[in-house]
C-alpha cells in the first residue's frame, strides 16, 4: 500500500514539477503580457494541485495534510483572483492585448 501511495505521489509531484517548469518557460517565451499570463496560470493552477496533492499523499491522514489542503484551497482561490486583478489593472491603464482576431460571440446576447 505504501509503495503504491509513494509511487502515485511521486508521479503527481514530478508531473507537477514539470508543469511548473513549463509554465516558467512559457512565461519567458510568450510574446506579450496576456499570453504570458496564460503560461503563468499553468504554474498557478495545475502546479499546486499536483504538487500539493502529492504531498498530501505523502503526509497521509495528519494535520499536515489538512494544512496542505488549506494552502491549496487558498492558492486556488487567490491565484485567479490575483491574475484577474493584474489583467484588470493592465486593461485599466490602456494596455491593449494583441489579438489575432476578435471574436465577439455574445454580441448577440
Amino acid at each position, binding site marked *: 500500500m505504501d509503495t503504491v501511495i509513494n509511487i502515485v505521489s*511521486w508521479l503527481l*509531484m*514530478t508531473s*507537477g*514539477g*514539470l508543469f*511548473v*517548469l513549463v*509554465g*516558467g*518557460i512559457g*512565461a*519567458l517565451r510568450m510574446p506579450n*503580457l496576456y499570453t*504570458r*499570463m496564460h503560461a*503563468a496560470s499553468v*504554474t*498557478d493552477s495545475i*502546479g*499546486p494541485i499536483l*504538487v*500539493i496533492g*502529492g*504531498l498530501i499523499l*505523502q*503526509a497521509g491522514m*495528519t494535520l*499536515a495534510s489538512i*494544512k*496542505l489542503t*488549506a*494552502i491549496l484551497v*487558498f*492558492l486556488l482561490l*487567490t*491565484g485567479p*483572483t*490575483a*491574475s484577474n*486583478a*493584474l489583467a*484588470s*489593472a*493592465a486593461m*485599466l*491603464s*490602456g*494596455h491593449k492585448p494583441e489579438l489575432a482576431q476578435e471574436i465577439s460571440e455574445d454580441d448577440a446576447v
Partner: protein
Amino acid sequence: MYLAVALAVVVTMGLALIRALLGPTVYDRVLAVNMMGTKTVLLLSVITFAIGRPDFLDLALAYALINFIGVLAVLEFFRKRSELDPENNTREAE
C-alpha cells in the same frame, strides 16, 4: 524526489525572475512577482517535507496570503494612479 520537484520550482523561479528583469512592462514584472510568490509557497511546502518538519507548513500558508495582498495592493496602486493621472497611465517601465 523532493529534490527534483524543488529544483523544478527553483528553476521556474529563476525563469520568472528573468521575466521580472526583462519586463518590458510593469505588469510583466508584477506577473513575475506573483509567480514567484506562488512558487515560493510550493517550494516551502516541498522543503518542509524534505527536511522532515511538516509542522512548518504555517509558513507556506502565510506566504500564500501575503502574496495575494501584495498583488491586490499593486492593483489598488494602479487604480489610484489612473484616477489621479489619467493621461499618464500608459507609461511603461524603462
